[in-house]
């Protein structure tokens, strides 16, 4: 497990990154709180947003896990790397429009909006390579200790995928909640004028970088 610590930490870090993005949820929660002039409205908006985000990640994670149980790690990584680079290219070349919903969104609308927002941004894809790495090493551990190539591989992989989603979402939720409450109670939305940098540009850069690294890792595995 300790050799995978960096992968788990990366999942947490990506959660912080997603949580900090104003377009991913905390700003929506703050706006609803300001509209109703109470902190509880901020807090009530956060769980559905986190749930939608988790669903978007889980979708990719489960697919990755299932593929991971069938394919060798190196092939999975190569495939994920290609997919990430293709998605990055699409984000650069095609004009991007944010999903939208009503301002006074219900919990259900918030969750759906958050799911679409995370999916459209490739939040799940960003997490996929980390999961692939975790799957590969877990499979290796299983293989060396039990001398059995696939011990309940599906259950094992899916279990790992859910753990990854949980870790990532918990980190995203905590970040989002802390930022939302601080902005609502202390800082005020004036900071948007300076602090709302173009996260989309950063995001595309991170996607591209992750894709390139994943592809390199996968290809190295295939060639060695």
């Amino acid at each position: 497990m300790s050799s995978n610590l960096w992968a788990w930490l990366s999942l947490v870090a990506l959660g912080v990154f997603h949580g900090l993005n104003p377009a991913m949820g905390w700003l929506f929660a703050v706006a609803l709180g300001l509209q109703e002039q109470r902190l509880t409205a901020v807090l009530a908006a956060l769980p559905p947003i986190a749930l939608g985000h988790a669903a978007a990640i889980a979708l990719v994670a489960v697919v990755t896990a299932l593929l991971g149980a069938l394919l060798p790690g190196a092939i999975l990584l190569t495939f994920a790397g290609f997919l990430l680079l293709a998605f990055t290219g699409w984000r650069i070349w095609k004009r991007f429009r944010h999903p939208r919903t009503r301002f006074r969104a219900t919990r259900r609308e918030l969750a759906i909006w958050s799911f679409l927002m995370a999916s459209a941004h490739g939040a799940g894809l960003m997490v996929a390579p980390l999961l692939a790495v975790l799957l590969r090493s877990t499979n290796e551990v299983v293989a060396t200790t039990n001398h059995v190539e696939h011990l309940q591989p599906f259950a094992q992989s899916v279990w790992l995928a859910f753990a990854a989603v949980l870790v990532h979402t918990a980190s995203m939720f905590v970040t989002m909640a802390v930022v939302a409450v601080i902005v609502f109670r202390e800082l005020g939305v004036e900071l948007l004028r300076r602090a709302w940098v173009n996260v989309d540009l950063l995001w595309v850069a991170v996607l591209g970088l992750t894709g390139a690294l994943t592809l390199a890792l996968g290809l190295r595995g295939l060639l060695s």
Partner: protein
Amino acid sequence: MATWRPDPTFYPSPRLAIKAPPERLAYVVRLNAHPNGQPEALCVVDVDPSSSTYSKIVGVSDVPYTGGELHHHGWNACSSMLCPNAPHPHIERRYLVVPDIRSSHITIFDVKENPTKPKVVKVIDPEEVFERAFYSRPHTVHCGPDGIYISALGTPDGEGPGGIFILDHETFEVLGRWEIDRGDQYLHYDFWWHLGYDTMITSEWGTPRMIEHGVLGEELLAGKYGHRIHLWDLHRRRRTAVLDVGAEHQMLLELRPAHDPTKAYGFVNSVVSLKDLSSAIWVWYRQNGEWKIRKIIEIPAEPAEEEQLPDILKPFKAVPPLVTDIDLSVDDRFLYVSCWGTGELRQYDVSNPFEPKLTGVLQIGGIVRRAGHPAVSGPLNGGPQMVEVSRDGRRVYFTNSLYRAWDEQFYPDGIRSWMVKVDVDPEGGMRFDPNFFVDFGEYRAHQIRLEGGDASSDSYCFP
């Protein structure tokens, strides 16, 4: 092109927008009242008191076609881009979208590259509007969180229904008709929204047929012009309520909702009462989940001699105030009311929207009054019409023409057009800036947009 930080002219809330720096330029559309083949134009007026060209037209950019009539215009993007439900904070406010109320062209000017020399970057042909939206006579422009909304007075054949269509805020393509379920809504004029309540409001004037050859006396006396406002679910694009002030009050025009998104009320003017020629201001508001409307101000007609009046008014022996535009300051405190007939600009304190207090009156022009201005000698005609308030609420600008065919009916001697500026006392009260008077001569100035945004350009998602 996407920017790294939000456009500096975007403010999350009206409270913050009030602190914006004063505007240095005003963009004013100018129409050509004479059929001499000269095109309409977007003019740039210097409104920086420290500049040597203060109160002068420092730039004129023609539209690339003739035979139209410019009227209102608006920005491609504004503070609503910061709304969390459809965020686009890294788009620039740099294009003015200028629809033509007669020819149905829409011209896009870039004012960033050279702010005093707006450059035409695109012209949307009338056919694109007709085909994609089945609307014509585009009118008012508002930058919405998810696109540019434009109202249209009617269909290509000059009848109804009028409505709203959407332009893509980056490519300026006509995306199509906005309404999904309009109920019995047929007439159209202005629109705006309460973003905090996902509610659109639209008002009623007349179809192109009813306005393009002047006001039709018979239809007016029969109460055929608009007298209702419609409330819509902004997200689902369906009408949810109708408020009718009664056919006695003809033409419900400009909609000025509170800028504070937590407040669900706004103001609208009715132009003329069939009973006594008065104009009125109404407040719509939400109470226990239900929308209501109530008259809060009535401005009476002023008696006049028959020989002082144009033909259309002679039988009535009175000058109607003809309130044709209103504007609400960004802090929702002062409402400015243009009385185009009597030649008055009124200022009301509407801190309590149900109990307005008259805090200032200025007189200039007017059908009978013909009041002058400290900067020029002699009488002036036309009257206060399109009025615009700076974001900090300290300056008010207005022009004096209404609409070509209607100008001729009420000012048959031909309007000589001007733009003036008023300095506002923060506690109420106004006075003319004696150094600001822009003479547009035979051309006619209409809507004014201020650099960086103004009281009728931006809407906000945060209080």
